[in-house]
């Protein structure tokens, strides 16, 4: 019954490996960009705050499919943006998908982090300012480290959502798990329930440990007050 899984026609591990790569690269991008956005949203500069707020509200409320398709049809086809070097269309699409996923997920990282910033007592920042630290030093040395520790659990949810959202990259032909699943559904229609089960299992293998490890980490790094 599991014959088709061994078929050289389907590279199941390869597809999931690409899913992992999409998750890791866009996860890192989202973390960095989301942190910068959160910094903007709490900054004393009105222009920065306005940009952060506008970005988060526009991008967060746009369907991910639209963003991913836009990176391919809008950025690449219309504007010719390939994100560094040539490469074949597959690696261009991969990079575009990472960009789209990171840009989208960063809004959720930003909002999780901002709620974390709100849990850090006002006195912490005041004490740091009273020592003579500037805005960025206060943010980087005092506020963000404590904010991150309090939002590990919500960030785990964002990361799990991101892992599953990478399936949208199938829309622009990135050969990750969902694209392979589509192909297998067409070719193996007699074992369709099995195909679904295999892919569901594959994603659970990726996301369940993420949740468990980060749940443990969140308790481990919690700041005692």
């Amino acid at each position, binding site marked *: 019954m599991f014959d088709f899984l061994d078929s050289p026609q389907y590279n199941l591990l390869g597809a999931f490996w690409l899913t992992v790569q999409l998750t890791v690269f866009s996860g890192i991008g989202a973390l960095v960009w989301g942190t910068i956005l959160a910094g903007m949203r709490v900054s004393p500069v009105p222009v920065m705050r306005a940009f952060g707020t506008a970005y988060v509200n526009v991008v967060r409320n746009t369907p991910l499919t639209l963003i991913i398709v836009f990176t391919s049809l809008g950025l690449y086809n219309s504007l010719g943006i390939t994100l560094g070097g040539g490469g074949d269309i597959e690696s261009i699409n991969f990079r575009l998908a990472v960009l789209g996923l990171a840009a989208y997920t960063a809004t959720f990282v930003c909002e999780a982090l901002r709620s974390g910033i709100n849990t850090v*007592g006002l*006195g*912490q920042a*005041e*004490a*740091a*300012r*009273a*020592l*003579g*630290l*500037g805005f960025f*030093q206060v943010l980087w*040395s*005092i506020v963000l*480290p*404590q904010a991150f*520790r309090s939002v590990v659990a919500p960030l785990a949810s964002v990361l799990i959502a991101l892992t599953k959202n990478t399936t949208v990259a199938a829309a622009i032909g990135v050969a990750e798990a969902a694209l392979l699943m589509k192909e297998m559904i067409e070719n193996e229609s007699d074992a369709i329930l099995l195909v679904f089960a295999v892919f569901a299992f594959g994603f659970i293998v990726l996301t369940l440990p993420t949740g468990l490890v980060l749940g443990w980490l969140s308790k481990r790094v919690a*700041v*005692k*007050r």
Partner: protein
Amino acid sequence: MSAVSVTEDAGGPADPAEPLVVLDNVNKHFGALHVLQDIDLTIARGEVVVVIGPSGSGKSTLCRTINRLETIDSGSISIDGKPLPAEGRELARLRADVGMVFQSFNLFAHKTVLQNVTLGQTKVRRTPKAEAEERARALLDRVGVGNQADKYPAQLSGGQQQRVAIARALAMEPKVMLFDEPTSALDPEMINEVLEVMQQLARDGMTMVVVTHEMGFARSAANRVVFMADGRIVEEATPDQFFSNPRSDRAKDFLSKILAH
């Protein structure tokens, strides 16, 4: 915020009345509430000024305006002859010279005691780490918590935390120290250990502005008592004068309430 308000010429370095902190006609509102009304206050180098008064009288706000944790609406504040900058790098530099101790300690919760005391030195003063740690350990010894250096703030008692907070402020070698009700959040048995450190500081000649309800400390350590009520400085006097012979009715009323039993 243009006028520098040092009215008297600063005397020679030996002049005990050399003004260090000068507040001139300072006003501040919280919405409709006029929390600071025409405050004039000059604090000389080496002087210990204790600010007392009923709650809501504006004494904490006054203390916080001196390093601009609270902005003011009008008037001017200058420290060591320089007007308080509005914001940015200049303000940060000035704040480094003004130590502040808070009611709720505000130690950095994710840093060890030692890191709390070295942070300002390394980030603001750019002191090398080894040197900063050496000074931090010396200061922690001085306030009596040297053996707690590697613990986190939450593992310390309130009195220990507040002494660490004092060490953290002293590590910057400030020109003046502001104490905003430093013992109000402490259990009674821990108040004295903090007050003793402050007494020692006062004896060592540190310029101090202390907002407190500890009348004993005011009596024994203050050069001058400033009594505030309803956003105004109602009375200024030496501790002896103030406690034994207050002039204003407001101060008499206040003292009768707190010294009655």
